[in-house]
């Protein structure tokens, strides 16, 4: 009894000590925040007329910033004290969510697909929502494509948007000059993008990590600048317009069809509505995304997918086992690029108009962020991250000015709490005994 109370006293003493240290640390952090905030938000210039500038001060904003950092730092400490166990941390919402997701992977996937299929027919659905869903699905597909390169093969690619652009322009040019329809153009987009992936792959074979990232970044910019300046072919900054919309087995979605062609609503005898096309486009990308997912999941369980992962883990060991790293890398680049090209082809047909402006570095960064935030190599994580990254800014249009701030803060928060991504969990590509845990 006495020992127990002694222990309690000691504990409380330690707690007090802990608290002072934590307060000290939080004050220090707040001080740094104040110093940073003073020039950044504390002082604002404005036009006082006649071209002269006046200075306005916003010390209240500085105070808010300091207070937020102070509180945040304290909260962070509490967390660290709770989870001193290690990098993976202890029980958080996300670890529990991830564990639950692993246990119930199949039902969750099926529910997700069912929801995605039903979305256009739900009572609260609207054209805006379906459009948003289409955008999310494009990013999901791009994320799954980039996942092959970054998540599986471990090759950091900052220029993925290049393949997206190549796919989009391939289809746009084929449609403009040769009159190909979406379904005819789709394989060519993938093929051309894949060739570009292999072309990029060759010079960067010996590079890894940071160096590879820089070269791929440059490649992405090269493609964009070529598109911007090669006016006779790509239309330069004006882009390419009047790209044909996808048709439903040859039935176009239009109010009035040209001679001899029946439109979708005539054929099915329903009232024409622009929503039909939007819904159809949504289902096209849903199908493409699901096929992409099945394709990459299947590849992961094949020798080629295992070789990608082995390459990510240890290239030297790969070579010692007789695996040709050149082929492995090029196949990863090629297949990742092909998937990006398919997505690009869809993007072109959905927008009806493309220009180099759609393929800036920020797109690459967003796709990469989706892969990294979702958890490298995790298919479900990509979906979650795409929904977060694409739809949150949409819902946050009310505070449009702060979108990038919120975006950045969310990234930092996720990297602090889930350094390996939202749903970082690797499912073995094959098991000796079904149902056993992969870890002890």
């Amino acid at each position, binding site marked *: 009894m006495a020992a127990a109370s002694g222990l309690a006293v000691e504990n409380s003493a330690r707690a007090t000590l802990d608290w002072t240290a934590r307060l000290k640390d939080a004050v220090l952090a707040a001080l740094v925040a104040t110093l940073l905030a003073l020039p950044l938000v504390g002082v604002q210039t404005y036009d006082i007329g006649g071209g002269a500038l006046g200075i306005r001060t916003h010390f209240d904003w500085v105070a808010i910033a300091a207070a937020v950092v102070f509180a945040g730092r304290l909260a962070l400490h509490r967390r660290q004290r709770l989870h001193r166990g290690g990098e993976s941390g202890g029980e958080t919402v996300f670890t529990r969510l991830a564990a639950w997701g692993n246990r119930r992977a199949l039902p969750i996937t099926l529910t997700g697909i069912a929801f995605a299929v039903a979305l256009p027919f739900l009572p609260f659905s609207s054209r805006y929502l379906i459009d948003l869903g289409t955008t999310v699905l494009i990013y999901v597909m791009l994320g799954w494509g980039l996942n092959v390169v970054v998540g599986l093969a471990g090759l950091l690619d900052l220029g993925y948007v290049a393949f997206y652009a190549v796919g989009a322009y391939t289809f746009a040019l084929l449609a403009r000059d040769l009159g190909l329809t979406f379904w005819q153009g789709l394989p060519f987009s993938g093929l051309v993008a894949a060739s570009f992936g292999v072309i990029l792959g060759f010079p960067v074979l010996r590079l890894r990590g940071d160096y590879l990232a820089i070269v791929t970044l440059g490649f992405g910019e090269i493609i964009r600048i070529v598109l911007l300046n090669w006016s006779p072919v790509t239309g330069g900054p004006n882009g390419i317009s009047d790209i044909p919309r996808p048709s439903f087995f040859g039935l176009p979605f239009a109010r009035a069809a040209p001679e001899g062609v029946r439109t979708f609503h005539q054929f099915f005898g329903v009232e024409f509505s622009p929503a039909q096309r939007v819904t159809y486009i949504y289902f096209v990308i849903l199908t493409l995304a699901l096929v992409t997912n099945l394709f990459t999941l299947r590849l992961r369980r094949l020798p*080629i997918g295992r070789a990608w992962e*082995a390459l990510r*883990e240890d290239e030297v060991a790969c*070579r010692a086992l007789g695996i040709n790293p050149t082929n492995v890398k090029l196949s990863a680049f090629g297949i990742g690029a092909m998937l990006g090209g398919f997505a690009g082809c869809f993007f072109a047909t959905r927008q009806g108009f493309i220009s180099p402006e759609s393929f800036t570095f920020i797109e690459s960064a967003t796709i990469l962020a989706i892969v990294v935030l979702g958890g490298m190599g995790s298919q479900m994580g990509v979906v979650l991250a795409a929904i977060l990254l694409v739809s949150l800014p949409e819902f946050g249009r009310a505070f449009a000015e702060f979108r990038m701030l919120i975006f950045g803060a969310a990234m930092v928060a996720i990297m602090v709490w889930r350094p390996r991504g939202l749903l970082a969990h690797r499912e073995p590509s094959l*098991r000796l005994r079904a149902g056993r845990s992969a870890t002890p």
Partner: protein
Amino acid sequence: MTGATELGGLLLAVEHLTMRFGGLTAVHDLSFNAYSREITAIIGPNGAGKTTVFNCLTGFYKPSAGRLMMHVDGEALLLERMDGFRIARQAGIARTFQNIRLFAGMTVLENLIVAQHNLLMSASLFSIAGLFGLPRYRSAERAAVERACHWLDKVGLIERADWTAGTLPYGAQRRLEIARALCTGPALLCLDEPAAGLNPRESAELNELLLTIRGEEKIGILLIEHDMSVVMGISDRIIVLDYGRKIADGTPAEVRADPNVIKAYLGEEELGKVPETTAADLHIRR
């Protein structure tokens, strides 16, 4: 050992191998042979050039001079002209590393399946048959898993087949790396300090394993080792390197009695003070 009575054919002939790094000559005019069904050990003090020899053999370095000839199925392959991955694939040389190089994030079983990549890749018709799950690929995969299980059983890891490789204890990782090398179906197995960091019991188990492999698989084993109990206990032939030069080559008994070897390990002045039979053993206890 009884190696002399069951000599296999010549597997590897190293002739006048020289490896220079700038002004430093790591290996100087080294010649030796390795035979199938034999365990050949390369020993020598730290920095003697043992691992450099391995790196030349497995294509990680291009030798400055010399010839490395590997005899596979009646064909002689010149290793110094081949890419690293082709050496493993065509010449049938598999190796392990001094600092273990497993695919740490993948499971034990996956590590062994990756080792059979080339076999499975051609069975999957470059992924096309695999993509559609054709029977041809399925049976190839089943065979690969069976081979993996065979080796997992041999190295005592079958119970942990679905563990992540990086979470295995050190000794188990060493054994897994050997199993992975064996899954490539090699003619010559090169082990770079397989007993490093093992306790005496694990070390004894390793001896058993290597002897079993030599007996059952009819392959040659080339071994770099510091642990004299391993080297002296199981080797059929020992090559001693010092400063990149070969100073002795022979059976364990011959090498143990060689004055040059004792000199290299113990230093000149101590020669004669130490019983020759234990000279090499003493090295590890100093």
